[in-house]
């Protein structure tokens, strides 16, 4: 086989593995960014963080939030709730970054898969 093609195909194989592992760590990040409170389930993302922050800035101490299952959930301590979701978001974003960098620096299939 032409060396140029062989090198390109090797890289292509690496990209297949890399892309799939990146997708898996993204899925893992999304899975972990969830907060359960008062029977409700909230995906923790920038939207809900900003919304809660806005409510607190407007002087609200409590709020009724619509959860991921379209259920209205009363959150009595809004500031505590914001602290909790910020903590979840930061922790998981840090883990995501760490795993992302581990994958990025590897230039072999074995390295990406950590085997």
């Amino acid at each position, binding site marked *: 086989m032409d060396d140029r093609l062989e090198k390109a195909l090797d890289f292509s194989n690496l990209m*297949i*593995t890399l*892309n*799939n*592992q990146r*997708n898996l760590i993204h899925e893992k990040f999304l899975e972990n960014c*969830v907060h359960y409170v008062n*029977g409700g389930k909230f995906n923790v993302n920038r939207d809900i963080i900003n919304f809660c922050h806005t409510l607190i800035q407007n002087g609200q101490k409590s709020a009724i939030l619509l959860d991921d299952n379209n259920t209205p959930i009363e959150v009595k301590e809004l500031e505590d709730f914001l602290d909790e979701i910020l903590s979840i978001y930061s922790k998981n974003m840090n883990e995501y970054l760490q795993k992302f960098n581990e994958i990025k620096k590897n230039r072999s299939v074995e390295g990406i898969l*950590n*085997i």
Partner: protein
Amino acid sequence: MKQGVLLFALNNKDVDYVKQALFCAKKIKCHLHLPVALVTDNRNYLTKRFPFFKKYIDQIIDIPEVNTNQTKRFLDGVYSIRKLPWKNHSRPDCYNLTPFDETIVLDADYIIGNDSLLNCFKLNQDFLIYRNPTDIASTLRKIQKFDRISDRSIDMWWATGFYFKKTPFMKMYFELVQHIKDNWPYYRLVYQIPHSTYRNDFSFSIAIHILRGFQLNPNWPIKMPGNMYMASDADMLHSVDGDKLSFICDYTSSGGYYVGVTVEDSNVHVMNKFSLGRAIDKDKEFANE
């Protein structure tokens, strides 16, 4: 007992579900710290082959052995197919079998890698069930056969893992599942399922469709917390290293093109039972119990 996990292990001649259930129970104890009850038709095999079982199984629930005529094609990678007896008849009985008030029911081939299922108990719901599994090689393929119970039929829900409370509503649900099972030749025609094999995923999905008022109701049932990762029976589990599972996945419809995939700290449904059995045998920690 208030909360716990119910597992089923009904061996056939080639698949050791008891071993898989014990491995699954070990992971449950590690991550969920919940009592585990095992439903089996072969207590003798469990107690003699795995004398250490009490470390992981809190209660054995005996059911009579049923010699079913039902068979299923089991893949071990793309090129190996075996037709074996498939004893999946007892799942609709889990309402009566469970010793728990709140039960998580799992397949024996479901490997727990984190504590996300503990959130089932925080959701104030009678029933939670998996809907869309996450394919471990989803960037490379789309397995459409798991979206609906057949091409022109209803959404598929997964009896691989679900949570329920013992309530009158759930009693009605499981009685309906039993009714569907008892009248399977009728229901499979109504719901346009080409294969005659009874499958719990299908009867659970049909019961959900009926109780939803035959509508696409997005508000019930609620999905199980966390992701259910899925490795198809064409994939092979290469090794288990703690909570890191390494797979070789086929990503073409014709077969023969593989990619390595590693999944960590995740709950994974390993559909290739043979490769799961081999990986458990290779797991030194489990082998040296």
